[in-house]
């Protein structure tokens, strides 16, 4: 297991460097680059801008700039927001919990529903349920998340009044129940695409597990079908799903951005769009890099869980 983890960590480090390079490249692609904010201030002369450029180290060769930027990144200095001069990392951290709540809830719903649908589809292959589940999944993957959000808001908030139309809390009511009430809509909307993906992968994984030799052995032992499917097939079929959780992080983050917009949920996604509209580049870049890092570490975590759960990796 140590060897497996070491390899994974090394791979992640390589990706970390590459991710940072891409982030740095995008940062400098912005029109006007890091100097954009200053060009807008009236009364700034070229000399002033040049002076600031020198201060920021922008006249140095690119590799040096990258190295300095990267080192600052590592110690937590991600710059300051143009809007309120707050440290970028602090701003991001303030908005992170809301997004995480949304992502985790959606993932939970997706795993529970997706695993169930996938297993049922595999066990009752080619049945009406299976065909409907497959078609349903393909349609669900084709529905724009934000449109689904609008439909849900229209149906459940405007028409039926069962769910609030947005935000995280009702002002004045900070109870847990109110919080859950607000969470349901966005979580379900974000979960739509995930349920589809999880059900398809679970079905494939389950079908693969059922076709293995050890299932035949379990049947030959005289075990009832339910135990064979649950204890033998499912346990094996769930292992690759752990990796899936990691692989789905970018999709979840992107979906969260859109869902937060529609439901005015105060998370990282809304922050991203707000900062973008204000041309608050430090925050935008910070969020971009942060999301990639989240994905990287999420995958590493998933691999760790996989190593722990699979005795073939754990005990080598």
């Amino acid at each position, binding site marked *: 297991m140590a060897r497996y983890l070491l390899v994974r960590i090394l*791979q992640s480090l*390589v*990706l970390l460097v*590459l*991710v940072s*390079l*891409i982030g740095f490249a*995008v940062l400098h*692609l*912005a029109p006007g680059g890091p100097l954009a904010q200053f060009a807008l201030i009236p009364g700034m002369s070229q000399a002033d801008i040049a002076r600031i450029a020198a201060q920021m180290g922008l006249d140095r060769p690119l590799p040096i700039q990258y190295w300095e930027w990267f080192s600052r990144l590592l110690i937590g200095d991600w710059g300051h927001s143009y809007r309120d001069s707050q440290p970028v990392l602090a701003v991001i951290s303030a908005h992170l919990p809301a997004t995480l709540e949304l992502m985790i809830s959606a993932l939970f719903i997706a795993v529970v529903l997706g695993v169930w649908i996938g297993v049922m589809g595999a066990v009752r*292959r*080619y049945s009406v349920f299976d*065909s409907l589940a*497959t*078609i349903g*999944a*393909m*349609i669900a*993957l*084709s*529905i*724009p998340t*934000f*449109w*689904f959000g*609008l*439909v849900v*808001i*229209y149906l459940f908030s*405007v028409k039926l009044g069962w769910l609030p139309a947005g935000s995280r809390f009702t002002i004045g009511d900070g109870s847990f129940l109110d919080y859950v009430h607000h969470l349901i809509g966005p979580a379900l909307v974000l979960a739509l695409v995930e349920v589809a*993906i999880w059900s*398809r*992968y679970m*079905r*494939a994984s389950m079908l693969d597990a059922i076709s293995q030799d050890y299932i035949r052995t379990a049947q030959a032992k005289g075990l009832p079908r339910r135990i064979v499917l649950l204890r033998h097939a499912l346990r094996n079929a769930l292992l690759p799903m752990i990796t*899936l959780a*990691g*692989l*789905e992080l*970018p*999709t979840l*983050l*992107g979906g969260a*951005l*859109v869902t937060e*917009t529609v439901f005015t949920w105060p998370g990282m996604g809304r922050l*991203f*769009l707000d900062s*973008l*509209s204000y*041309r608050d580049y430090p925050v*935008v*870049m910070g*969020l*971009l890099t942060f*999301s*990639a890092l989240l*994905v*990287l570490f999420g*995958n590493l975590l998933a691999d760790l869980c996989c190593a722990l759960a699979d005795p073939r990796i754990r005990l080598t």
Partner: protein
Amino acid sequence: MSATLRAGDVAMDDAVVLADTPESARGSRPWQRFRHHRLAMFGSAAIFILVLATVVGPWLIPFDELHIDIRNRFAPPLVGGHIFGTDQLGRDLAARLLTAGRLSLAVGFSAMLISASFGTLIGVVAGYYGGLVGAALMRFVDAILCFPTIFLLLVLAAFIVPNVAMITLIIAATAWMEVARIVASQIATLRERDFTLAAEMLGASGTYIMFNELLRNAIGPIIVAATLTVARAILLEAYISFLGYGIQPPMASWGNMLNNAQQYLGSAPWLAIFPGLAITLAVTSFNFVGDGLRDALDARMDIG
């Protein structure tokens, strides 16, 4: 290694329940197999109708999509001859929808052409040369895939002038990675086959082998990936236009129609429902077709 899963990847592992029914006849030719894939045929028909509707439709509808008629604003569907109703300026929704469709479909298709070409190029090089070059390219692709696509797309969209060409370009820039990975793995497999070895021993150059031998045999998965990329591209355009960074008004795309519809959700829900249905229909159809193509071309790939 991280990847952004899409409908394509999902259905990739799924041995096509839809066509893999016990009674499905396995025709010896890919076209026959495609024909038997019911959903793929539905998808093809839907695409055909959509394209036809968006190209010809606006001429058939008695209203001009730009015609502002304040007296009839917010007409619900089927009122006053407007099949889908009117928007806040009294413009006929059906006409707008079809005209917007032209743009959305065109952007989707063009983005696919660019990203499929670029992705194939990268994939072929990575798959053929393998070793350090291949690994480096694929790691680079993995790194880009660490960034959520929407995030990247929005950042790029904020940097550019939002005309149709640039929008298409940035969508392509975020969609080529999946194609590259599929192509790279396919080429890497084909590379080990005997016919490649034969070509090399006959003295063929790397470029020749890559493009004449390997690419020809990898065409199947490329076509499948390309079809699924159209679906993604249409969806991505919708996303950024909805968020305000894509196609700008007064040009209509399905995405920005939804942006517009958001504020009138309570009073005129049809403004949101129809564009969304259109997007869903288009994307679903391309996904079905891609799935059917994959199933139809499967056996041919195995033999090659």
